[in-house]
């Protein structure tokens, strides 16, 4: 077993980790331009920046995946050279990646010791003991014998954290850790981070969510276009100042909610019950209606049946009971193709855009073809019109891509979402289903998405908006439906409810229906 490296007292005044003039270029692109930052022991530093501002490149240099072109890294005041991930671990630097690197079929404990020498030597009991000890020290809640595939996202992240702590990390770097978490899971994560801080660890949290920054950080370093533009104390700054530093200009943070006019019945869902793959009800007796020109928000803890609701309406899942009427016509049990053939124009933006909705290895042109490649007679695909549409879309939505043929998985998250949303909106849908449309997106991209949704609403499109940020739901939606364990626990108007009430409905301890019929 290995102990965490002891910090010599004489160096205690040095920052735990410090970067001076770190630069990394990829061909003509300067990803990191003379970046300076420092984190002290027992301090949480937020690294704030929009997509493409160089956060991930910086992280990769600290974890030994890339090497800097120039600049220096100091750990406990000593210059170091991080050549490979093993070096970073030996220096006590632990990375929590956005995409978990865990072996699904192994238990939490097996994942934690994997790759250390301990997996051969120590007994299971001793390992378990050690893991419980670390868990207690940092307030982590992990069942060592539980298999990863049985875990919720928040639990998996805890295992990741435990993994780096087990390896003796005293400097933790978390890359957008809350992107996949529910608000409750995020709160739990912040508690863990506070424990680490109290224990003398140095924590860097990479994010673009201002709310988080204000909640957890001591100091904030802002990256813009690859350069570190400022470092500020949290106590001495405001959300407005941070936004301006990050975006480079003032930004209006209010979300508009245009009034619903000309309400027409569009979608009626009656007593919908859906079973998941394990034949357990994922949705129970769900009834609601959605009108044209209305944004209906769906709130709920992750896994409350949101995905099943979307996929059942989109024709990707079969229902057990109930009916889905679109303009009074029953569409349940129909495949996506049959729904299209009925002349119904429906768009679905799934939460995992590269997992469903887009083909990551294809360029924008081929992705635009996805839903209408069958159009036009003859056996051949017509790419010329799609190419023109792609160029037009790139210009209109400001998509950043080297070429229309560049595989979309190489684009940043915001640009990927713009491609998907752009394609779906261009198809002129009557119903737009969006699941977590701003997940993983920076502020600027998020507001572009809200604007696009409102633009659709004005055209009379009915929007089903699955959201996670309650503040956004309250500002954007005309009504909010709350799901808890697959059941509707409330359909409310945002003007007549509060965040706290929504939270109670999400846990099923309150039922309220104020906005049902309207």
């Amino acid at each position, binding site marked *: 077993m290995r102990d965490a490296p002891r910090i010599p007292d004489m160096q205690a005044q040095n920052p735990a980790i410090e970067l001076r003039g770190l630069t990394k270029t990829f061909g003509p692109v300067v990803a990191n331009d003379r970046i300076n930052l420092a984190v002290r022991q027992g301090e949480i530093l937020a690294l704030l920046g929009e997509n493409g501002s160089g956060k991930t490149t910086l992280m990769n240099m600290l974890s030994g995946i890339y090497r800097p072109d120039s600049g220096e890294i100091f750990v406990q005041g000593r210059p170091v050279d991080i050549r*490979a991930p093993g070096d970073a671990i030996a220096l006590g630097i632990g990375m929590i990646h956005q995409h978990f690197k865990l072996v699904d079929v192994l238990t939490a404990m097996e994942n934690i010791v994997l790759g250390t020498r301990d997996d051969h030597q120590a007994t299971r009991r001793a390992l378990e003991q050690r893991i419980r000890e670390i868990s207690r020290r940092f307030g982590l809640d992990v069942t060592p014998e539980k298999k990863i595939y049985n875990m919720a996202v928040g639990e998996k992240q805890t295992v990741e954290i435990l993994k780096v702590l087990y390896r003796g990390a005293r400097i933790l770097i978390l890359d957008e850790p809350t992107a996949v978490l529910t608000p409750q899971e995020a709160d739990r994560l912040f508690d863990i981070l506070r424990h680490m801080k109290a224990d003398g660890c140095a924590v860097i949290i990479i994010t673009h969510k201002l709310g988080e920054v204000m909640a957890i950080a001591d100091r904030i370093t802002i990256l813009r276009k690859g350069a570190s533009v400022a470092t500020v104390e949290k106590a001495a700054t405001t959300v407005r100042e941070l936004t301006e530093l990050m975006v480079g200009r003032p930004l209006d943070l209010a979300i508009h909610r245009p009034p619903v006019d000309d309400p027409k019945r569009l979608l009626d869902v009656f007593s919908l019950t859906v079973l998941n793959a394990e034949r357990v009800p994922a949705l129970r007796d769900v009834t609601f209606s959605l009108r044209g020109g209305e944004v209906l928000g769906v709130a709920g803890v992750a896994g409350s049946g949101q995905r099943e609701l979307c996929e059942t309406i989109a024709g990707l899942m079969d229902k057990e009971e109930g009916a889905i009427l679109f303009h009074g016509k029953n569409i349940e049990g129909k*495949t996506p193709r049959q729904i299209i053939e009925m002349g119904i124009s429906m768009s679905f933006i799934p939460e995992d855009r590269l997992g469903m909705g887009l*083909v990551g290895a294809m360029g924008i042109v081929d992705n635009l073809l996805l839903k209408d490649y069958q159009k036009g007679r003859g056996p051949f695909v017509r790419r010329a019109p799609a190419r023109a549409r792609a160029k037009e879309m790139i210009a209109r939505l400001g998509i950043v891509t080297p070429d229309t043929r560049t595989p979309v998985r190489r684009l940043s998250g915001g640009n990927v979402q713009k491609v998907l949303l752009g394609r779906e909106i261009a198809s002129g849908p009557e119903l737009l289903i969006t699941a977590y449309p701003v997940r993983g997106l920076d502020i600027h991209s998020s507001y572009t998405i809200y604007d696009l949704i409102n633009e659709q609403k004005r055209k009379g499109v009915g929007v089903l908006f699955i959201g996670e940020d309650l503040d956004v739901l309250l500002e954007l939606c005309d009504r909010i439906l709350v799901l808890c364990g697959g059941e509707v626990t409330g359909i409310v108007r945002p003007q007549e409810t509060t965040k706290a009430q929504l939270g109670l409905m999400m846990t099923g301890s309150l039922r309220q229906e104020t906005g049902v019929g309207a």
Partner: protein
Amino acid sequence: MIGKPFAPVRAERRTDVPLTTQILARGLAIALALLTGGLFILMLGHSPQAVYASMLTGALGSATARVEMFKLAIPLLITALGITLAFRMRFWNIGAEGQICLGAIAAAYFALYQPHWPAWLLFPAMFAAAALAGGLWGAIPAWFKARFGTNETLFTLMMNYIALYTIQFLREGPWKNPQDMGFPKIARFAKEAQLPRVLGLHAGWIAALVLLALVYVYLRYSKQGYEISVVGENENTARYAGMNVRRIILRTMFLSGAVCGVAGMLQATGADRTLTDTVAGGVGFSAITVAWLSHLHPLVMLPVSLLFAVLEKGSGFIESVFGISAAAADVLQGILLFFVLGCEFFISFRLIVARKEARHG
């Protein structure tokens, strides 16, 4: 230095290698391969120049040699095209051997029992029967995959043996040539049922080139080709877009098997002029290498399969001329392939050597 070296050399994926560098790298790989192979030949006690030269003359030196070489290239190219259809869909069709056998069996039925049919009917019938038989043979594992999610790699592989032993069964039983008293053999096809020659080579080469063009256009420009790519890359997205994934898997594997079946028909009626259990003879496996070396790009398969055929024919030739054993000739082939395949690694990855002392700053 606190950190200790973890990986002295590591690989980083790259996609930015210019075409000229790629060509240069491949040329260099071939040169290195020839050099290493030369050392090996020296160890065997022969002159490398002489052996290499006779490999070339053996494969390309005379009209007969060239015909023989092309005869090897035809089934290789067609089969590579066939499995590419499946591979583009990420369906690992390892069953080309079996599909070739089935195509050959189907064609052999007409050659043995209906040779009196007019040529305009006989050849199209053989062609259609071979495509149908190979296609159905390929569609069986596809059906099980689409229906029950079975592993296609094992399934297609096992079906090779069924096909192979079916030929042996026919040879020793129902289709045994009564004129051959001792050794069980299937009769030589009647002259009318042998593929005609065009420019000194059986007409299969025309079929190969036509198939090359068809597969290229199909994959690149057709709606079905587009569906294959989408299903291969992301099945969820395919369902999302309203594609019938099961039907696409079945259809594509039928086509993949059909193309391989045609290779079997051409081999039996054009090259072998009878049905033997060596009609596939490992082509179904070599074609996988050809397909990957060509990055699943149909047009590249033409030069690659020719290169393979030259290597194969040439090493056969040096066996007889220099008395080099078949095994040693295979080693030589292996050395050449090793370098060429290895070079693809260096084109896709960049090696980063960690230096102990150096620190940028």
